[in-house]
């Protein structure tokens, strides 16, 4: 840890500060993890948007004669089904491509919901302390201590499976964690001299929160939310794997993995490929998150 951080050094040595866009771009080009992440996430978005045009087959139509065909390159494989078929003869590749839609939709929306609730809650609780902190954090504690998976099982048993119910369950469960992380960051920031000084010189609470605290928690919020998108995509698939959550007609990765469990020993591909798709998607979001952190906070970085 010998040197001045890269970004600071370049600011010190160059006469002009490069534009934000070129800085972001240069950072990305020099960051292999970030590039990989952007590539993976773009790939998932492309799959989700263009699913009907790029998938070779109808994801919901199967022919029982083709059931459990192995991948094309294996003995007995059929070249029309590159990754093989599932227990009712549907094309795995097409189902995996369509499965990206549900994952992205739920992952993004539920995380957004968590941030909308959790960020203000954490800032207020951390800054004001006292009664405000008590009330917000006790409510958070209730959501937090309620074991998520049991909460999800109960709520989904109550409202029935469904995409929007999943967004709600995941979003509502996620905010408390975010609020807690933001709050603990604010507790540390609050003790810093310049924040104390700002209050002493008459800055209003709103001013301190917006000008001094918010910019300093963005980094951690972004890191946590990126993790959250990945986690929520994973949880969605897990709930679907448990048979909760989604309509079996909709192709989704967790449900596909569940349907392969019975055939695990004879048809490994039914389980393996959706799992790999899921893993790469989550990996993509995590890598992008790391890269965003580099851009947002170069001192923390890499």
């Amino acid at each position, binding site marked *: *840890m010998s040197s001045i*951080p890269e970004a600071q050094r370049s600011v010190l040595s160059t006469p002009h500060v490069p534009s934000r866009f070129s800085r972001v771009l240069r950072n990305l080009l020099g960051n292999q*993890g970030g590039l990989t992440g952007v590539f993976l996430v773009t790939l998932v978005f492309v799959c989700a948007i263009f699913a009907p045009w790029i998938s070779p087959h109808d994801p919901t139509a199967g022919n029982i004669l083709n059931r459990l065909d192995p991948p094309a390159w294996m003995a007995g494989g059929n070249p029309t089904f590159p990754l093989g078929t599932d227990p009712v003869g549907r094309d795995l590749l097409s189902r995996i491509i369509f499965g990206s839609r549900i994952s992205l939709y739920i992952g993004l929306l539920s995380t957004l919901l968590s941030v909308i609730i959790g960020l203000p809650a954490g800032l207020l609780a951390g800054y004001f302390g006292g009664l405000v902190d*008590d009330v917000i954090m*006790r*409510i958070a*504690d*209730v959501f*937090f*201590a*309620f*074991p*998520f*998976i*049991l909460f999800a*099982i*109960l*709520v989904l*048993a*109550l409202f029935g499976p469904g995409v929007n119910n999943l967004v709600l369950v995941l979003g509502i469960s996620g905010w408390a*964690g975010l609020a*807690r*992380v933001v709050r*603990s960051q604010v*507790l*540390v920031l609050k*003790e810093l001299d310049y924040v104390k000084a700002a209050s002493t010189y008459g800055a209003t609470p709103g001013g301190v929160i917006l000008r001094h605290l918010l910019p300093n928690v963005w980094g951690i919020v972004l*890191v946590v939310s990126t*993790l959250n998108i*990945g*986690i929520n995509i*994973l*949880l969605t*698939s*897990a709930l679907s*794997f*448990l048979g909760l959550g989604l309509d079996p007609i909709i192709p989704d990765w*967790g449900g596909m*993995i569940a349907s392969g*469990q019975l055939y*695990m*020993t004879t048809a*490994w591909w039914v*389980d*393996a490929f959706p*799992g790999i798709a*899921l*893993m*790469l998607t*989550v*990996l993509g979001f*995590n*890598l992008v998150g790391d890269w965003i952190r580099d851009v947002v906070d170069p*001192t*923390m*970085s*890499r």
Partner: protein
Amino acid sequence: MIRYILRRLFHTVFVLFGISLIVFVTVRLTGNPVAAMLQGSNPSVQAMASLEKALGLNQPYIVQYWIFIKGIATLNFGTSFVTGQPVLPMIWSRLGATALLAIGGIVVGVLIAIPVGILSAIRYGTILDVLGRGISLLGISFPNYWLATMLILIFSVDLHWFPVAGSEGFSSLVLPSFTLGFILAGILARLVRTSMLETLGSQYIVTARAKGLTRWRVIIVHALRNALLPTITFMGIQFGGLLGGVVILEEVFSWPGIGRLVLTAVNERDYPVVQASVLLLSFLYIMVNLVVDLSYAFLDPRIRIGD
């Protein structure tokens, strides 16, 4: 300190009250246990009414809730609608199995995460860092049930090293613990690394080095101690996720833990079992987090806890 702990325990009562209310209401909204029990037998109205009476479901909700709350105070959670056995011993025996899995996962997780995180941070930018980050990224990107399935496929079905499922001694603990631990390690190693990097860049570390302290003393005593603060918070937060992971893995490994008990109980509308399990797990979780918060004050004296 004592006052702080007392206040937190008071909070706990409030939180548990909130949870008891949520679980009481939602479980009743999911459906009638009597209908679920007599499914298919096309029961008469009298039969249903008498069964409802026997289960105490004919009473007003407020009375039912009062009985539930009174039961908590006296540690009597009632009897299962389905088996007729007292709920507490039922849960108790399952909780042990779940705890065993969770502890196995935590042990594996911490053993991987702390060294990987530290090495990544101090060898920042080297091949070791890339490797360490790779491990932790894979950890957080793997779906746990899928990883479990793949491990079973390789180590149980193909190599016959470990049992496919069940709970027969140490060997059946290996695969689930590793699955849980690997995923936990992904999250933890990442955090240890990030906070280590942050701390290592700060002024007081430079000062400590300049003072002539050895590299490792600075890393372990000065940096790690501060870097552990966010890590430990997150570990407390992760305890809930860990429980969730355990529930899912119990399903994959047919492990007789509390997760499978609750899943079945929700399906059978076995209210007392659902209520008691949720409440006990929440209580456990709250206690873990109380300990986490107390360790805050110990690790970072800037955060004063007593007042």
